[in-house]
């Protein structure tokens, strides 16, 4: 067997064990642990952001930096594709 294959199997089994023990640390279904932030957003989103859609208020207002990062990812993807296929353009 190749060395790379042995290393891959080792890493994979380590990851599998990690995830397997992670399962037992999950909350039971329907019983979330920390709900203070959820309750705050559900209660205050209409007053603070003026939206009926709580998901959009989280994505664009409470966690706007996350959306900024997503937009940056899309920008770099477009830049990379245009760079690779530059010869296509006339």
């Amino acid at each position, binding site marked *: 067997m190749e060395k790379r294959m042995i290393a891959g199997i080792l890493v994979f089994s380590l990851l599998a064990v990690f995830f397997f023990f992670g399962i037992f640390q999950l909350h039971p279904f329907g019983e979330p642990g920390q709900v203070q932030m959820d309750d705050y957003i559900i209660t205050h989103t*209409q*007053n*603070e*952001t*003026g*939206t*009926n*859609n709580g*998901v*959009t*208020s989280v*994505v*664009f*207002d409470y966690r*706007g*930096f996350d*959306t*900024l990062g*997503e*937009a940056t990812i*899309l*920008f770099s*993807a*477009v830049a990379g*594709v*245009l760079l690779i*296929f530059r*010869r*296509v*353009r006339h």
Partner: protein
Amino acid sequence: MSEMTKIVKTTANILFPFTMIFGLYVIVHGHLTPGGGFQGGAIVVSGCALLLVAYGSSWVFDHIKDKRLATFESLGAIGFITIAFLGLVFSAVFFGNFLTGSGTLFGTTPATGSTLSNFNTGGVLPLMNFAVGVKVIAGLFVIVLVMAHASSIKEWG
């Protein structure tokens, strides 16, 4: 990608406007209904990909310039960041929602609880949805267009 038969073209002609309208609806009503700039932009680009499959990449490439699409992509990004910095100017917080409750554009605050959706709410959220929608439409479409056109080239000189 070469063009396909008349049946595919006719079907694409019928489906294309409805896909456009649905995608633009999802973008514009991003602060009221499920969806937003990213999702609506992906729907619009799926309609454009339908056009690309039916008519072939060289036909679309002759009619739509990828350079112009890239410009629109940058314009969407600049608009998004400009709105974020306007929040820094007017409400002292980066990404601050300075329009909500102001009574002007998108400035109405809905009553707490389950209320009817009012389009004139949300502050800067609809504007950010528009900016992200323009960005996603142009960005995804230029990726699909350039890669489809590259796959149709026989020899790379």
